[in-house]
């Protein structure tokens, strides 16, 4: 028996690489993402993302649906930021058709889109912090997000898949309660953001889990095609609302927050700043909300954009969402391509995670802020 001991001990200390399967049913993957990790001890050596569990063939379905029928599919791409998905699609069609919107419609669109950005960032904050172990912030952020969902329910009838916009404007106008509710929410939110930052920004555990984790240089981030807060966290002030302005964004005064080092903590700071900037935009839009119609005057009953093509992009909470629309002049698109920010950003997970510990993979999936409905489409 004693003669066996040395070889058994040698086996214990033998260094081997291990393959670890994470997901697709794993709470921190925020959906159905499967990550295959190659580990040396607890350190990630290599990883591969297996996606497509939620693939519904949206681009194919769109080729068989009329233009108004497609909008609900965009609700269900990034289902925690449905309004931003709707916006890029209806704007792409309107741009191809050359429809001019009444200013009230544009303002209401900006209000809803920025409220949705706040809701999406709050959901990101809640789940990201919960993944790392801060459970309190989850309840706080969901409390504020609930207020936005109530506003959406009042305006559109739906909390999540809002289907807020129609080609040529909006179906409904804002009622007086809408303005009142939004203003009330704007009054409470900045104080609540202060609360979140009090809990997290100087919290030792939070700092230990985020500072220096998943550092991306600006050049790397651009090369990997990252957009949105992930790119801005690396110090690139690229925001589609400024870079290729759409809707009435040029009329509003807001800043583009950026980070310096490009780690998980910087990306957290950028998103917290963006919450405050969105509050600024919504307040300006509510104060300057023009009177008038919410639907363009000459929108045909059957939507048939002229033959041609357009690539229209918006700043969604996750990054640059784009629609490449090829029309052949009929009532269905010939080809409709969605440029999905989550899909492109998820590609960076490998670069971010290699060299870090398994526990950091959870933080890194959170910091990219993916929604699998949009990754898989």
């Amino acid at each position, binding site marked *: 028996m004693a003669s066996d001991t040395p070889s058994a001990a040698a086996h214990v200390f033998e260094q081997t690489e291990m393959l670890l399967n994470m997901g697709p049913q794993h709470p921190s993957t925020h959906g159905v993402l499967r990550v295959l990790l190659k580990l040396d001890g607890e350190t990630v050596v290599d990883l591969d993302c297996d996606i497509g569990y939620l693939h519904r063939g949206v681009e194919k379905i769109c080729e068989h649906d009329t233009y108004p029928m497609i909008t609900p599919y965009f609700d269900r791409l990034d289902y925690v930021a449905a309004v931003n998905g709707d916006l890029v699609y209806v704007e792409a069609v309107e741009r191809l058709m050359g429809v001019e919107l009444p200013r009230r419609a544009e303002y209401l669109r900006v209000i809803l889109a920025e409220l949705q950005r706040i809701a999406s960032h709050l959901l990101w904050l809640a789940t990201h912090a919960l993944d790392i172990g801060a459970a309190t912030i989850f309840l706080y952020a969901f409390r504020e997000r609930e207020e936005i969902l109530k506003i959406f329910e009042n305006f559109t009838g739906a909390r999540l898949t809002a289907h807020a916009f129609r080609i040529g404007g909006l179906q409904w106008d804002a009622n007086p309660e809408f303005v009142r509710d939004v203003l009330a929410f704007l009054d409470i939110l900045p104080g609540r953001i202060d609360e979140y930052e009090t809990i997290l920004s100087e919290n030792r555990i939070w700092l230990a889990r985020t500072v220096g984790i998943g550092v991306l240089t600006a050049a790397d981030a651009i090369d990997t095609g990252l957009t949105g807060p992930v790119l801005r966290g690396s110090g690139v002030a690229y925001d589609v609302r400024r870079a290729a302005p759409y809707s009435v964004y040029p009329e509003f005064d807001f800043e583009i927050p950026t980070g310096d080092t490009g780690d998980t903590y910087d990306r957290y700071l950028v998103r917290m700043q963006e919450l405050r900037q969105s509050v600024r935009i919504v307040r300006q839009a509510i104060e300057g909300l023009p009177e008038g119609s919410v639907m363009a005057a000459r929108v045909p009953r059957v939507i048939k*954009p*002229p033959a041609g093509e357009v690539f229209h992009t918006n700043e969604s909470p996750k990054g640059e969402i784009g629609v490449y629309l090829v029309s052949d002049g009929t009532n269905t698109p010939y080809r409709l391509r969605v440029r999905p920010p989550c899909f492109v950003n998820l590609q960076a997970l490998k670069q971010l995670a290699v060299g870090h510990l398994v526990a950091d993979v959870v933080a890194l999936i959170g910091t990219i802020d993916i929604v699998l409905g949009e990754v898989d489409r």
Partner: protein
Amino acid sequence: MTKDDPNNEASSESRPTAKKAKGGIDVVEATDDRLVERLRERFGDAIHSAVIMVGQRVVVVAVDSLAEVLTYLKSGDELKFDLLLDVTAVHRPAETPPFELVYQLCSTSTLERVRIKSGIEDGASAQSVTGIWRTANWLERECFDMFGIVFEGHPDLRRILLPEGWEGHPLRKEYPVEFRENRWVADTLNIHALPDDADFSGKVEI
């Protein structure tokens, strides 16, 4: 878009400065565009056409020179298109060549944008641009998955959204939108197409 394709129009000798395509989209020949001038100067006949459509620059390039043009746009040109936003394709079975590769480029410093397109034959392969932009990796994989276009020089060209072993490429026009019997679905999920004489009456023989 077959007959009124502005890209075909560009080859005729008398070019109107502004032309309405079918239905009234403004398609303007990109004559005084400095980027297009530089591209024509450098690549000559490889630049098939260049138009401005809905305010967007669209340049059609010969597929053989595609990688060179894209390399130049990323690092050689003064506009520095460092951000590759999208790689995708359009399938037009009736046209030759039937596929069109589409690259959406953006510059984070000058904020200029350009769309590069290139026709490609069915079964022919395109040069991968993963060496120019790392982001092309997954985008080209998706393009391969959905259209079956092969990218030469891609480090890891396999399906991305559909499972390994799937038959066909869904975004080709001949691929039906309805369910069709598929070996992967039959083997993995045990789902089969119904027989032609399927009984929907709901009656159960006892």
